[in-house]
């Protein structure tokens, strides 16, 4: 068939095709990176460590967003991939003295493979919506329970990363206040962001989005839906695994709960929802907002205004405030911060 011949009569002058935002996203990433590089040199060390935590948060969530946002497959079990990344790094380092960088790559590969397996089963058996979500959750829990009772990964004890006498890039270990941690985390996050931009603009990303919107229609236009869904899941898992692998090297300790616990899965969801699901910037913005929020509420309530003096030191109050803020943000900005902003812009 020839779509190129003879434009139909009803077409008037052809409008120029709309510009696409990808290169602008890449530019924004580049600018932001340059701006952020000096950050750890300015921040006091405590805030610098919050900044590293924010980046880990963002990284996890960028991964989640790829599968659940762009891919439309709601994962409630991203702890599985985070944990695989963390354990791959921890296990190889502690048991076999392998560099965490290699551990990271192995973690990515294993996480991607595991995601492909889960995805294949879940999609093969046509799990959808909440059923799919709970199935992913179940797999993460199975990993947690298995790790807790498996000699192979040191049971519930987990792994301590041995301290090295001196800083080393190869072993990914520096002075705790070293800016290198921030820079590495920043680098990894930037790579993940670029990967997600490239993914979304790629053939695969477009296919994944189409499959999310309507699986049957996607198949009907010729997209091998299963293949691209699995690809999306694998990529998503690999990114989140990087977060896990870095986490272990930064915090020097991992155990089954920290790696595979359900709160990890929630942490992967939180930034994306707060920032904006299925947007490039959502997870990052969400992480920047939610990462320090715990510390902020704790700090405010530790030195309460005189009227509330009696509340000082009462455990739980800061968590209450956190809960209230969480509800308010989600209610007021159901599409997330970036989602709301973008809507604003596009209105104008």
């Amino acid at each position, binding site marked *: 068939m020839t779509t190129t011949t003879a434009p139909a009569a009803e077409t008037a002058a052809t409008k120029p095709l709309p510009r696409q935002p990808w290169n602008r996203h890449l530019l924004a990433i580049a600018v932001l990176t340059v701006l952020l590089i000096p950050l750890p040199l300015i921040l006091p060390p405590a805030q610098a460590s919050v900044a590293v935590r924010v980046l880990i948060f963002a990284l996890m969530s960028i991964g989640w967003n790829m599968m659940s946002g762009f891919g439309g497959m709601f994962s409630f079990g991203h702890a599985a991939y985070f944990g695989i990344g963390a354990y791959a790094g921890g296990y190889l380092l502690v048991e076999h003295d392998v560099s965490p960088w290699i551990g990271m790559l192995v973690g990515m590969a294993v996480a991607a493979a595991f995601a492909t397996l889960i995805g294949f089963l879940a999609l093969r058996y046509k*799990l959808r919506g909440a059923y799919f979500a709970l*199935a992913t959750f179940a797999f993460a829990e199975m990993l947690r329970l298995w790790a807790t009772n498996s000699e192979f990964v040191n049971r519930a004890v987990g792994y301590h990363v041995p301290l090295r006498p001196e800083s080393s890039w190869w072993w990914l270990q520096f002075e705790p206040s070293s800016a290198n941690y921030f820079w590495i985390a920043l680098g990894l996050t930037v790579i993940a962001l670029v990967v997600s931009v490239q993914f979304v603009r790629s053939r695969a990303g477009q296919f994944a989005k189409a499959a999310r919107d309507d699986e049957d229609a996607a198949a009907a236009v010729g997209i091998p839906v299963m293949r691209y869904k699995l690809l999306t899941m694998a990529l998503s898992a690999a990114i989140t695994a990087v977060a896990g692998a870095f986490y272990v090297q930064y915090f020097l300790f991992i155990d089954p709960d920290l790696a595979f616990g359900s709160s990890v899965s*929630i942490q992967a969801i939180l930034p994306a929802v707060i920032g904006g699901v299925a947007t490039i910037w959502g997870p990052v913005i969400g992480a920047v907002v939610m990462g320090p929020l715990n510390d902020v509420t704790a700090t405010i309530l530790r030195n309460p205004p005189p009227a509330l003096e009696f509340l000082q030191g009462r455990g739980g109050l800061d968590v209450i405030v956190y809960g209230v803020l969480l509800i308010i943000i989600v209610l007021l900005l159901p599409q997330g911060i970036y989602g709301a902003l973008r809507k604003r812009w596009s209105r104008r």
Partner: protein
Amino acid sequence: MTSASDQDHVAAGNGGGVAALDPDEVRASPARTVPWLRIAVIVALVVVAIVLAYVRAGSSVVVVQAVTTGILIGGVYGLVAMGLTLIFGVLDIVNFAHGSFLALALFLTFGLTQAGLHVYLALAISVPAMFLLGVLVQRGILAGAMGKPLENQLLITLGISLIIENALLLFFGANPRSVALSGDRGVPIFEAVANLSRILAFVGALLLAGLLYLLLQRTRLGTAIRAVAANDTGAQLVGIDTRVIYAVTFALGTACAGAAGTLVAPLVTIEPTTGSLFNIVAFVVVVLGGMGNVVGALVGGLIIGLAEQLGGIYLPGQSPLLSVFIVFVLVLFLRPQGLFRRSA
């Protein structure tokens, strides 16, 4: 009216003629038939599982006890899951705060028994009180997020649970409390024993499931709830005020948490976090039973209870929860919509 227009999308999707239906969706053609075959298969599988456990354990006492405990505790899981499944089925909310509502009911029950009331009489207060709270929470918070995606609801209810748990901590302190049932003792069942309070909780679960089933199938309110679950635009268009149904359904769900809280009060240590213990299992039960299906929740609870107890025999040294999740995933692969279909 964004929700009305969103809804239209859905309505157009499921009403526009047979061709709109997912070609692969399996469906029971006539409405409201009891799936006897499925029940028979489930029962048969359970029997096989028990026999295998017996072969494996070699001791009938342990297996009989595991089955007894599994059934009783499964009843409790079902009890907790019932309210959850109702909310899930009608409002499409994954209610993470359910366990906290249960904790609230535990503390309420504790307070009432301290004031001299018998535990089971506390039901007369805890159930209506939790119902009221449910109305307030739905109207006050969740109504603003109706029709929003799963993850938004999830975070909101997570926030609610953080607030409830920590408010309990703040006001009641962290020391564990307990409610004793006078005359609670072990009751022999074949070779096994079970506490009276557990048996009563189980009976309570059966009664509650029966009541909810009757409410949903036989009453005007129940019919309206099912209608809203099936198609809320349609429900509006026959004259049902969906706002009221949403609030009432959520409140019924929390009232179930209230009943569950009071019924399990003698079995558990009462702490602000006690309720969330049940959250994970309850979600599994809800999905297993088929979201929105009250009887499914009860059956799912029993299966999970048995899986947990028998799993300890099959996989010694592994956590019993592992077998719960294995059973869960296997069931999902066989029946991706849960064991029983939503409502109707």
